[in-house]
């Protein structure tokens, strides 16, 4: 392989490597988002299942 061929191939490989690196970083970001969605869904489920607090008695009734 000549010097020019080596450099041209290197240029194309650099582009390919950067695009692949970007996709790997994006895959990590997607898995983080998925984990966060799971945590929020769990939080929402716990809130729904927790007993509702007793309503405060009416002040007039307490006074009477």
């Amino acid at each position, binding site marked *: 392989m000549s*010097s020019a061929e080596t*450099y041209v191939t290197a*240029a194309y490989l650099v582009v390919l490597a*950067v695009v692949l690196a970007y996709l790997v970083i994006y895959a990590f970001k997607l898995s983080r988002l998925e984990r*966060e969605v799971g945590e*929020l869904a769990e939080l929402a489920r716990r809130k729904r299942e927790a007993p509702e607090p007793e309503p405060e008695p009416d002040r007039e009734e307490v006074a009477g």
Partner: protein
Amino acid sequence: MGISLAFYWVPDAPIEGFRQRIFYIHVPIALTAYACFFWAAWKALRLLWTRDERYDLESYTAVHMGVIFGILTLVTGSIWARTSWGVWWTWSERQLVLFLVLFLFYSAYFMLRFSVEPGPRRARMSAVYALFGVVLIPVSFLAIRLAEGLIHPVVFDRDVGENLAGSQLLTFVICLAGTLALAGSLYLNELTGKRLDARLAELREALS
């Protein structure tokens, strides 16, 4: 497909020889970087015009993509310079220096953005900055035509028909279309991810 055509179909250029094949990746990437910065400026203008903050995220994502393609432009251009001129970089070429200035200008966009609290003020400041940057693009693009000590090759001039054979032009157009499509899909993915991130933060705040 564009890469296959560039390597196996197009003939060697008369002066540049085999190394001219970098042109099919370097120029489309540079044009895509310009397109991303133009897109960022357009979204910034719409933000300033309508005060709609969703354009802020779109402008930011376009700058993000433009900077990635800007890095690739500098790297592939540097490799071409090494094989053609024998050096990785030269400060005497205005086209290179102006592109570097453009790249550093947009890299500083992130420093500005992350040094201000999120909100309408940050959105407006980022939009004004993105609009200022777009002024540098025509200067950078025309630099090779205005330069006196010209060593950077000019392919797209009045004699484009003589500079490029039919197979070379077709390969270039395919590579440009592919690079723009890649940038478009990366932009949409990144924008969706950033929007999802913002909405998750809102949801977390509402639930806590």
